[in-house]
């Protein structure tokens, strides 16, 4: 067995979970959650942690717990301290396999119903594989502005993507599409 196969075999034996944690944003949540996991013998993989409105949201790949119930037990000290809601899914690791985006799309406009659904449907129909999407509501209470930023893989080429977005520009949405050339040195 060569080195690569060995490490694949070792990786496949590790049980990974996707742990989702949500709670009111309070100082110390991240420290509390990660301390509970570390003290419970768990390790972290890739994670996303961010404040959405008044909530703090955490999604993390966790290894080291053998079952959903075991992981829920490990996280209990933080759950009690910060009054968190928890959801656990079993997952495959698939680490060390990042896709590199070749396009970045920024979309913004006055907030209204359907802005995300319409734009994402047009992008998806023209072959965009979304790798990372985040959006914000900016502006003021009276005049909210929706801002959407996407890193993706244009599987059918950029021209195709541009054409499909042209129809949206008449609807008061500003769209900029930037090809991403990744410099590897």
């Amino acid at each position, binding site marked *: 067995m060569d080195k690569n196969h060995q490490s694949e075999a070792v990786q496949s034996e590790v049980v990974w979970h996707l742990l989702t944690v949500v709670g009111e944003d309070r100082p110390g949540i991240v420290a509390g959650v990660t301390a509970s996991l570390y003290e419970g013998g768990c390790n972290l993989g890739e994670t996303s942690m961010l404040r959405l409105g008044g909530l703090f949201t955490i999604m993390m790949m966790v290894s080291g717990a053998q079952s959903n119930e075991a992981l829920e037990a490990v996280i209990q000290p933080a759950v009690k301290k910060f009054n968190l809601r928890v959801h656990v899914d079993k997952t495959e690791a698939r680490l*060390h*396999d*990042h896709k*590199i*985006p070749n396009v970045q799309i*920024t979309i*913004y406009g006055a907030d209204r119903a359907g802005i995300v659904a319409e734009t994402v449907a047009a992008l998806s129909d023209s072959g965009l594989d979304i790798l*990372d999407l*985040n959006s*914000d509501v*900016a502006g003021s209470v009276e005049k909210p502005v929706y*801002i959407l*930023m996407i*890193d993706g893989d244009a599987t059918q080429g*950029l021209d195709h993507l541009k054409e499909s977005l042209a129809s949206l520009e008449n609807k008061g949405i500003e769209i*900029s599409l930037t*090809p*991403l*050339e*990744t*410099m*590897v*040195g």
Partner: protein
Amino acid sequence: MAVLDILTYPDARLKQPSLPVDSFDKNLTNFIHDLEQTMDAGPGGVGIAAPQVNKFLRIIIVDVSPMANMAKTKKRRFKSSNHGRLILINPEITSASGAEVAREGCLSVPDYTANVERPGVITIRAKTVNQEIKNIECKGFEARAMLHEIDHLDGKLFLDRIISTRELFRRKVYN
């Protein structure tokens, strides 16, 4: 001639500053041939610095022409100067202006790319293998490659300069 092994992070040697070259001899030209071969063997690399192959001397190679050719094929504008293959010894940045954000990866940091802010226009003074002094103005992608490689000479990686997508977002929309 040989393809050399590339050091990958967390190897601490990548954080070590490199020393100026003072002997322009046969050893230097032999090493530069190997460094070129190593860069050409790598997947999609447009630059390489000597410390990436465990040689702590101030030597870099940058060649963005493959990217320029690819842009031409795809009829896309290549936002960059293109001086072809540049083999630069003891390079110094003599001026830098503007700020651009773009994505970078590194042969020494596999499976990760991120946004990095760099000056958009720079001038570099460096020696060639024949000890001639060159002053070169680079823009865009080529300037980025040059700065990324010079960073290696100072023990810096693009990981030291990452900016978050959300930060980029604010600059794009509000500036």
